[in-house]
């Protein structure tokens, strides 16, 4: 007989009992542990007198493992007898209606939070940074298919600006250019600059503190905060300094945040010419023309319209005027459009009926029926903000993407996610118990497709609360076209391990 040191085994057995005791409810733990320790002493005493060391230690260890079963039994019993005040936490099991709604609410809150964190999305959701945006419009050639391409000649702008106008109160012009900008203390950097008439920011309603003395001498440069950080090491003393732009000199007059610019073209800076006519800009230079409508003339105009106006050659030409608050281009309008499209496409991806739920005298029906619809409506209401903010987050994730591309991204993502979410919503609704709204589980294949004429074949799902069975046909027939719910009467309750899943009715 080989003798083994007892102390390590004894310590190990005690540790097992202590670990098992952690499962026992606190009120019973001390007495439970005391009883098992006492029994362990007697088991060890008994085994050591009868068996070899290894054999006895094995028996003692097997005895200690039983403590876990005993502790688990007490733990389960305590859970089943939780007071009714904790019924909310019981109804919150994974797959329950409340659990699903909480998850959707969390996703909606997360999508909203992300949209507030992303600068591009935040800008898209914000109202226009310009004064009276409904009176502002961009005039372009109707032959251009891209709004980001400049189409108006500078001499066209000058002719219109000099003529007496009835429809418009003022015009401003800007021409995007890429120019090297040199500051004495920093190396030269290539910036996208809008060479503009001096009234551009006045017309838009953005206040820029222009120095009247400097204005008469040289052009004024307004730079974005982002470009300042990227190219000039966030130099806080840049305002008032003279910079060289190509061969010309300009004075930096202001630093503004880039999101305040929502007109066509991504700009790093604006070079405001000293005069309103921007005489330094060549006649044939193409740019964008921004106009402000007379307030009285706005009422009878749509958001986008065409007009005929004289050109420098004297002939008339057609031009397109697009309001800066064009409804079709707002994120909300795009989302509603894509959501409508996905609603139209939904029947092609999944069946719309929610199944047959017959009235049953064993289970309450009327209120349960109402609750099912309330649950479906709540899911729908929570899905909408997830889709809206989610599609916006994806579309405006990269702030360097131009607004038109972002709108295309929003259309694609909005449609795809809406279609997926609506499909999920219906499929989820069909796989829920009509009594407790819990997710049905344990899918089982029933029947054989080759015997479809004699009996049904498909999938059978069960409610873990024992409320019933769902029969989903594999092949739709004239006598079994949609899924059917079969209520189980109370005599089946003893078979189910989740009796606490009380009906929601």
């Amino acid at each position, binding site marked *: 007989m080989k003798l083994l040191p007892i102390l390590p085994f004894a310590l190990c057995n005690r540790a097992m009992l202590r670990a098992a005791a952690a499962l026992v409810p606190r009120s019973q733990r001390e007495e439970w542990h005391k009883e098992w320790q*006492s029994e362990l002493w007697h088991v060890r005493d008994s085994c050591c007198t009868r068996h070899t060391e290894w054999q006895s230690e094995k028996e003692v260890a097997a005895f200690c*493992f*039983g403590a876990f079963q005993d502790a688990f*039994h007490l733990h389960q019993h305590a859970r089943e007898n939780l007071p009714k005040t904790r019924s909310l936490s019981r109804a919150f099991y994974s797959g329950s209606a409340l659990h699903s709604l909480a998850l959707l609410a969390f996703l909606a809150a997360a999508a909203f939070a992300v949209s507030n964190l992303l600068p591009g999305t935040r800008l898209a959701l914000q109202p226009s940074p310009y004064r009276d945006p409904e009176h502002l419009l961009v005039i372009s050639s109707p032959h251009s298919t891209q709004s980001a391409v400049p189409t108006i000649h500078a001499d066209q702008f000058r002719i219109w600006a000099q003529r007496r106008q009835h429809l418009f109160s003022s015009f401003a012009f800007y021409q995007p250019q890429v120019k090297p900008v040199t500051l004495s203390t920093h190396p030269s950097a290539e910036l996208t600059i809008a060479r503009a008439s001096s009234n551009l920011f006045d017309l838009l309603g953005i206040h820029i503190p222009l120095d009247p003395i400097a204005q008469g001498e040289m052009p004024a440069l307004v730079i974005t905060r982002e470009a300042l950080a990227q190219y000039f090491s966030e130099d806080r003393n840049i305002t008032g300094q003279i910079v060289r732009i190509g061969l010309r000199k300009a004075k930096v007059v202001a630093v503004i945040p880039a999101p305040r610019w929502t007109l066509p073209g991504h700009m790093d800076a604006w070079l405001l010419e000293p005069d309103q006519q921007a005489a330094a800009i060549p006649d044939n230079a193409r740019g964008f023309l921004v106009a402000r409508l007379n307030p009285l003339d706005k009422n009878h105009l749509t958001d986008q319209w065409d007009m005929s106006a004289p050109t420098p050659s004297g002939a008339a030409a057609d031009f397109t005027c697009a309001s800066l608050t064009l409804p079709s281009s707002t994120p909300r309008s795009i989302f509603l459009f894509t959501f409508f499209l996905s609603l139209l496409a939904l029947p092609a991806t999944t069946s719309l009926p929610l199944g047959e739920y017959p009235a049953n005298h064993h289970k309450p029906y009327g209120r349960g029926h109402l609750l099912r619809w309330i649950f479906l409506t709540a899911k729908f209401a929570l899905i909408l903000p997830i889709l809206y903010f989610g599609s916006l987050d994806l579309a405006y994730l990269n702030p360097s993407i131009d607004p038109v591309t972002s709108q295309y991204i929003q259309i694609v993502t909005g449609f795809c996610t809406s279609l997926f979410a609506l499909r999920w919503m219906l499929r989820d609704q069909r796989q829920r118990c009509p009594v407790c709204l819990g997710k049905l589980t344990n899918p089982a294949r029933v029947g054989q497709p080759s015997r479809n004429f004699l009996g049904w074949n498909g999938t059978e799902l069960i409610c873990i609360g024992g409320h019933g069975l769902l029969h989903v046909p594999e092949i739709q027939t004239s006598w079994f076209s949609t899924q059917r719910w079969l209520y189980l009467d109370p005599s089946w309750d003893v078979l189910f391990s989740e009796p606490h899943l009380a009906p929601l009715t």
Partner: protein
Amino acid sequence: MAGEPKLSHTAAMILQAVNAGTIYGFSVMETTGLPSGTVYPAMRRLERDDLIHGHWEAQSIADAEQRPPRKYYKLTRLGKATLEASRKRYPLLAKLIPSEAGEPVA
């Protein structure tokens, strides 16, 4: 009696063992041959259903024998009635664990 709970064979065996004088958990294990993971949970259920009653022996007795005190179990009145009903249901119960082994200890 109509109010008596119907016991499983295992529970009836344990009840019979307690009645036969095997009055603590480990001795029930030895008498019935059931493992600890079955015996102790079953005894908790029997105690919860008022079929058996557990009590700790006096500390002085344990000290005199130089061992820790034990928790002893005995049948309640309902337990005795239930055991009688179970014997009719499981006729071999009395043969598996004869009652002559001893009387329950108070």
